[in-house]
């Protein structure tokens, strides 16, 4: 059974983040793979044998608790070492980095250190529809989503940008969005909600292909194509 592990839905699930898990499970099932969503809550052990690990959006206090518990648990580190995919969104993206800040006094908190990025409070909050270009295995692919973050993220040498911004703020208004680890390209962080895998099915399939090591058949959907058309048109208007 392929496990899609949602890390702490009650802490890091503020923006419909469970939708990303539902998309992955459903797209696996459509290709004949058995898959289940494992919603790990604080106090539960994180499975070490997951296929994909998801971290989502949450508030400051939730970020601190999540980092502490993931470190104490340790299984997420073992899982990525043995080839699992880690896909982190928004607050989740910040906590997989080296450091991030919380609170009015910008207290610096150590992250999981899985992605070479550091996040500090930005000059203004980035809120709104975002459109980026992802250099996917099959070429340029538009990523549509909704960003909502106060932190600005700077990439270190060990990370490269995940996408280039057409509309929106992204990492820190420098034209880049998200990050991929150079040492382990199965660790990806990004800001957009939407949820992002709902609006960008090709990214969802890419994560699954990374995790499974196989190529997946296409799943044409007029409904998803239309959603993408609408969101791209809305943000470019």
């Amino acid at each position, binding site marked *: 059974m392929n496990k899609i592990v949602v890390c702490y*839905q*009650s*802490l890091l*699930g*503020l*923006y*419909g*983040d*469970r*939708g990303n898990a*539902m*998309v992955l499970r*459903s797209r696996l099932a459509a290709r004949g793979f058995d898959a289940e969503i494992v919603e790990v809550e*604080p*106090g539960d052990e994180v499975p070490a044998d997951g296929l994909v690990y998801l971290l989502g959006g949450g*508030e*400051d*206090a*939730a970020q*601190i*608790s999540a980092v502490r518990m993931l470190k104490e648990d340790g299984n997420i580190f073992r899982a990525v070492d043995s080839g699992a995919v880690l896909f982190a969104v928004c607050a989740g993206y910040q906590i997989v980095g080296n450091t991030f800040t919380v609170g009015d006094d910008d207290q610096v908190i150590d992250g999981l250190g899985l992605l070479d990025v550091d996040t500090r409070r930005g000059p203004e*909050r980035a*809120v*709104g*529809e975002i459109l980026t270009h992802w250099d996917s295995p099959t070429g340029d692919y538009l990523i549509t989503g*909704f960003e*909502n973050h*106060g932190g600005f993220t700077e990439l270190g040498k060990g990370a490269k940008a995940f996408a280039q911004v057409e509309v929106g703020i992204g990492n820190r208004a420098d034209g880049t969005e998200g990050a991929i680890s150079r040492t382990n390209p199965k660790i990806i962080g990004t800001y957009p*909600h*939407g*949820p992002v895998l*709902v609006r960008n099915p090709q990214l969802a399939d890419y994560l699954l292909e990374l995790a499974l090591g196989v190529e997946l058949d296409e799943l044409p*959907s007029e*409904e*998803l194509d*239309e*959603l993408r058309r*609408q969101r791209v048109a809305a943000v470019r208007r």
Partner: protein
Amino acid sequence: MKSSVRLRLGTVLGDCAASASRLLGKGSGASIRGQILTRVEPRAFEYLLDGRQVLAVSGTNGKTTTTHLLAAAVREDRGDKEVVTNTDGANLHYGIASALCKDLSAPVAVLETDERVVSDMIKFGKPAVLVFLNFSRDQLDRHHEIKSLAKSWRTALEQAGAEGPVVVGNAADPLVVWAAELAHSTVWVDTATKWNEDSALCPNCGAMLVTDTQAVPGLRSGAAEPVQPNTTPATAGSTAWRCPNCGLHKPETEYGVVGNEIRLPDGQLVDPKLQVPGYFNLSNAACALAAAATYGVDVPVAIRGMRKVTAPAGRFATAKIGSSQARLILAKNPAGWAEALPIAQSEPVVLAIDSVAADGKDVSWLWDVPYERLAGRHVICTGPRAQDLAVRLSYAGVEHEIIPDLLTAVDWCSRAKPTWENVPAPRPCEGQIIDVIATYTPFQKLLKLGGLR
């Protein structure tokens, strides 16, 4: 009440603008009246509150309905002319000033108050009673930290000290309990709250809250003691919760929801026989009843008044739209949708989604709503974000179609034939009411289409 020439002038000018707004079909005009009034007399909010006995209601969900229930309860006791209230849900400074300037003589004001206005309400309105209903994720593009609102309430209550209101609070919601902790006096209500996804962490210290899976009416006392059933005979209620670190816990409750009834402080159960549907409104009624009783209204009188409430600001109203009958249900966020879905039983059911500022611009929340519960039903998706909803329903395994235009979607009876083979033909439509759940903006449009505003 404090008065000024500017206040009177502002009222006259505001009235003119409100009339113009209504004539142009732009709404009730409450907001524009308040805006002009406040432009002419910047302290209108403060002056208009001065000298009145104020009962205020706030929280993420249920404000409008609870305010209507509370106003009805107090009116039943004091008489219609004694009570002024903001009936149309205009609950910011402008809206409140607008409602108050329409009735300068009423000594009692029952006021729905936006979460952001609670601090000023405590400071300037000096409410006798303040109802705190709940906190949950809502319009996250505007309110990034749910806790920051609760914190502003807490600070305002601390500053008010002994001058502050009696807080009637929902004991099931840890953020409410924390926000009201410093009030000089509290009356706790055990509501049937089901939404708990925004209260995983202790609002006081950030530790993980512990909940008891057994339904217990409240924690006996002290945080160090294990959670165990209260000695009162009532057995239902929401789950007990406590913080193992700092000791914040679900307080003992004087009122509560038990099945379809409301538990009173003496343990007696009363069936309010409300005309507004759903468990959520029973919880709202329990809070309104507790507030009315705290204010001195006898329980039977309060309940008699609350039974007269049918469609607060159009919520749950049945409207004729085109040639169809539609029941209009408002749901603005995941907690609201979780309560609204069980109420909507019609076949088909229409869901209307928009994403302008008043709805919240990010519709990611669609994935926090348990639409899976609609499996086996037929859903018509409408509104500007119908496509987002359609995708959500596909993943939920719910059969649906998209009709972007609101009127066409709701006016089921005007359609020539059903889209689905196994749905009964829409004609004759007599007696059939289509349930429509809508976010804020389409809800307001539907009220207008139905001639209700």
